[in-house]
């Protein structure tokens, strides 16, 4: 039997797992001729061994000793949320690693006097963003992790945009005792509030943010937490009708979660804008 003929014969036998095994022990003249060729041909020997390996692997994976039982080989497809989550994580990952330190640091040096607290808190957020991905425990929902990281990435991105604008402004948040408790920073499109002076609110409570001017309070949002840093970020476009007149105050108060649109709780932080 020549090489081409042997190769073709092995390919035929490969269709039937038992035929490959049987061939080696067979007494038929065809099989003996093939066995003889294989014993002297490394290529055909390798081909035969390869097919035997494939058969063993398939039989091991697909056969179950339970009578009548079958292994499930129906397709299992990931849903679209996994794809979106992984791609979002990759995007966020890039914004975390090289971008944040290099963008924040030069500005920090240029205007370090007033920005120090903002930068420190922003750095805490950077750590929180990274930690959201890197330290997510087994019980952490992937989608929740992605949502949290995306939110924190938005905050950091807003800080970057503010720092990049030469006309950005900043005001110091103060506690009711008059101590510095964080910063409110804004530029043409973003406003970011960062503080480490708040403790996690109790059940049924939340920290709400207000703009107060001329005796009128306007609710603009609720503080979120990332580790020990609380933050709120908004786009000026969303509340462009609110005028930041001199004398406007930014207020954080502790309110019932289901409270009305009016400020009723105690003020915990405030800043003169």
């Amino acid at each position: 039997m020549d090489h081409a003929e042997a190769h073709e014969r092995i390919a035929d036998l490969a269709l039937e797992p038992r035929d490959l095994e049987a061939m080696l022990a067979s007494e038929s003249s065809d099989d003996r001729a093939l066995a003889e060729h294989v014993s002297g041909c490394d290529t055909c020997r390798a081909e035969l061994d390869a097919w035997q390996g494939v058969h063993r692997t398939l039989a091991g994976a697909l056969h179950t000793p339970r009578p009548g039982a079958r292994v499930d080989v129906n397709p299992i497809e990931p849903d679209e949320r996994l794809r979106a989550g992984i791609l979002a994580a990759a995007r966020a990952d890039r914004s975390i690693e090289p971008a944040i330190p290099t963008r924040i640091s030069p500005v920090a040096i240029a205007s370090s006097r007033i920005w120090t607290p903002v930068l420190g808190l922003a750095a805490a957020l950077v750590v929180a963003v990274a930690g959201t991905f890197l330290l997510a425990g087994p019980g952490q929902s992937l989608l929740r992790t992605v949502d949290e990281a995306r939110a924190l990435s938005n905050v950091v991105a807003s800080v970057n945009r503010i720092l990049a604008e030469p006309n950005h402004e900043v005001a110091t948040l103060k506690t009711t005792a008059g101590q510095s408790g964080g910063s409110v920073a804004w530029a043409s499109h973003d406003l970011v509030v960062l503080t480490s002076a708040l403790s996690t609110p109790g059940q049924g409570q939340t920290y709400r943010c207000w703009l107060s001017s001329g005796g009128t309070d306007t609710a603009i949002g609720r503080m979120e937490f990332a580790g020990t840093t609380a933050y709120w970020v908004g786009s000026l476009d969303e509340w462009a009708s609110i005028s930041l007149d001199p004398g406007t105050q930014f207020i954080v108060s502790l309110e019932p979660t289901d409270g009305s649109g009016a400020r009723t709780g105690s003020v915990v932080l405030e800043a003169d804008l």
Partner: protein
Amino acid sequence: MSEREGEPDDRVLVRRIAAGDEGAFELAYDRHGSLVFGSLVRFLGDREAAAEVAQDAFMSLWRRASSFDPAAGSLPGWLLSIARHRAIDRLRGEARRPSPGSAELLDDLHDDDPWRNPAALADRNWADSIVRTFVSELPEHERHVMVLAYSDGLSQAAISERLDMPIGTVKSRTRRALARLRTRLIEVPGLVEGLTDFGMETAPAPAPYRMMD
């Protein structure tokens, strides 16, 4: 999903990913995401856990693409290697058996069976999970003949009779299915003992796979 005509091959994709190309990363996920996820679901028996480990594996690709050596193995093999280590770490952390399926498998084994070794059982279960996922990727008519041959143990003639189909059709479907599977099995070192592009060779796992340990 396999490579489509006109699309860059995996080596090009990985180079682009290493350079920070999000589009290449997206394509790599579209090409190999189902294989990684499907294998993990079969191994862990939990879609949520599988999604988290799959994310870990793809984020490793995103962050460490430059450490991938295409000469040492395929991209799906690399991703599966990372996924395997993450999945086993997860199982160790949760002190669970490899999967509900493995618990059934244990019941079928004798006390002196070497597969009672948990590490060996996990390895075998992982390999089976990948192989089953490869089979699941086959066109349905090819998948069907594979199940009849390897799960039910039917000969080609018996399959022909069972399906009331000419024996030639059964053989051509089997031939195509086996060719596809052999190509896929080669992508994952160690899945078929010693099987490489060049036939049977006994070689240690290439560096990238050991690196992930």
